[in-house]
């Protein structure tokens, strides 16, 4: 597990992120407390999920013409930009630095992210670009994990098949780790998957031969072979959205701010502040030496 090397700089700590008791004195009515916390906390993440300014949103210019040759209507034109400094400027592919942070303590296992992901990419049934696991740990250190249908249907029922003496239960969203030393990229024999200069690991489905070597090599099982196209597929952190200044679909729909995405070039971004702050961040399977750009907050050591 990684413990981030922190530069302590208190003035930069994002106050919105700290659910400190100081902000809400303990003698408060409990319900009120929760309500306020919810308001504060959710508003904090909401600010990042979408800017509250609605004046521009949706007043689409119906005459907007063919821009990228794909659609005559570009819904991004009037949408508030969610990742600053991307739109309307030259995209310097060498100077980008994005990070994804998953906050385990905020994930409620609703599965919105999984649904959004499936819809955004038409992911075939039984394959998952992202999924949410449920962990249950009991007092004997037994760990029970499940992930019915990848979390697509949410978690409607508690587990009844295990002795219930839970010490700790939590949800863990999983997605591509965007490793800086990506084993999938290393093993691809034809260069069909690659690390783009801006740090995304993408697929070239026009060149993929479908050998599935990348699927074997990924320590996180984030890849699958699309049964229709017979080529490998993976989470791209919604590269097409990011390049339009929008957040990845899963981050977009996350109601609690458990998934956070942003540019580290932007000192106001939540991920920048978290990575700069003193909190403990970990990555998955650090011993694999893959150097993920996906960080976890509040991760328990049982999570692999």
């Amino acid at each position, binding site marked *: 597990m990684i413990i981030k090397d922190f530069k302590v700089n208190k003035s930069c700590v994002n106050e919105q992120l700290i659910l400190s008791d100081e902000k809400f004195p303990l003698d408060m009515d409990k319900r009120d407390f929760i*309500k306020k916390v919810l308001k504060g906390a959710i508003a904090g993440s909401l600010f990042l999920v979408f800017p509250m300014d609605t004046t521009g*949103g949706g007043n*689409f210019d119906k005459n907007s013409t063919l821009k990228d040759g794909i659609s005559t209507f570009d819904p991004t034109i009037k949408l508030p930009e969610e990742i600053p400094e991307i739109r309307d400027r030259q995209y310097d592919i060498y100077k980008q630095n994005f990070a994804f942070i998953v906050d385990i303590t905020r994930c409620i296992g609703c599965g919105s992210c999984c649904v959004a992901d499936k819809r955004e990419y038409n992911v075939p049934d039984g394959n998952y670009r992202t999924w949410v696991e449920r962990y249950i740990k009991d007092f004997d250190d037994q760990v029970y994990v499940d992930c019915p249908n990848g979390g697509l249907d949410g978690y409607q029922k508690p587990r009844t098949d295990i002795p219930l003496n839970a010490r700790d239960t939590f949800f863990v969203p999983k997605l591509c780790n965007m490793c800086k030393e990506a084993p999938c990229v290393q093993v691809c024999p034809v260069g069909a998957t690659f690390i783009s200069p801006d740090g995304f690991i*993408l697929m070239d489905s026009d060149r993929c031969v479908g050998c599935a070597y990348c699927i074997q090599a990924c320590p996180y099982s984030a890849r699958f072979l699309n049964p229709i196209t017979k080529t490998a597929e993976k989470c791209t952190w919604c590269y*097409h959205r990011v390049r339009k200044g929008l957040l990845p679909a899963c981050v977009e729909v996350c109601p609690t701010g458990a998934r956070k995405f942003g540019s580290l070039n932007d000192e106001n971004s939540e991920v920048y502040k978290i990575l700069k702050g003193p909190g403990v961040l970990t990555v998955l399977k650090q011993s694999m030496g893959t150097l993920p750009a996906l960080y976890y907050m509040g991760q328990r050591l049982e999570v692999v």
Partner: protein
Amino acid sequence: MSKHALRIAFVVASVVLMAGVGFVLKAQLIPKSFGLYGPYRADAIDEEAQRVLKHGTNASCFGCHQYEATIHLKGNHKTISCEFCHGTYSDHIKNGKKIANLPVKKGTEITTLCLRCHNTEIKARSTMVIKTVGIQDHLKKQNVKLTHTCNQCHHVHAPLKYINEAKKITGLMEVKP
């Protein structure tokens, strides 16, 4: 050099020639943008960047649905994505025109949807993040029929909207500084 050796030299030469032709052919068949950034096709990056968006943002919905927007943005559900419950933007709007109506959840569908997040029985939900209920207990405690669906008391876009309004009317609303 004997005739035999000459033949062998000819064979070796043809093998080398064939290999040479192979490499020339290979150079011709490699896609143009291959190798621009590394051993891959650089155009694949742009192709991925131009993938058609399915989801918009909440702002894309609020542009037209301004009545819902005013309610949604004031309630505790303001962080919930419109598209999660109703379906994606692209299923609704294409080229600036409405192509289909998105479904509106009804009855028990709503309860199921609410309990995806708000079910206390799923213990892995931090009270710091979300308020959860055991639905049966909750209905009993509120003295309503056990067949009640959530939206009979809670506005789905702003769950405390009616409740707060009711409290105001009945004078039960806590006065806040």
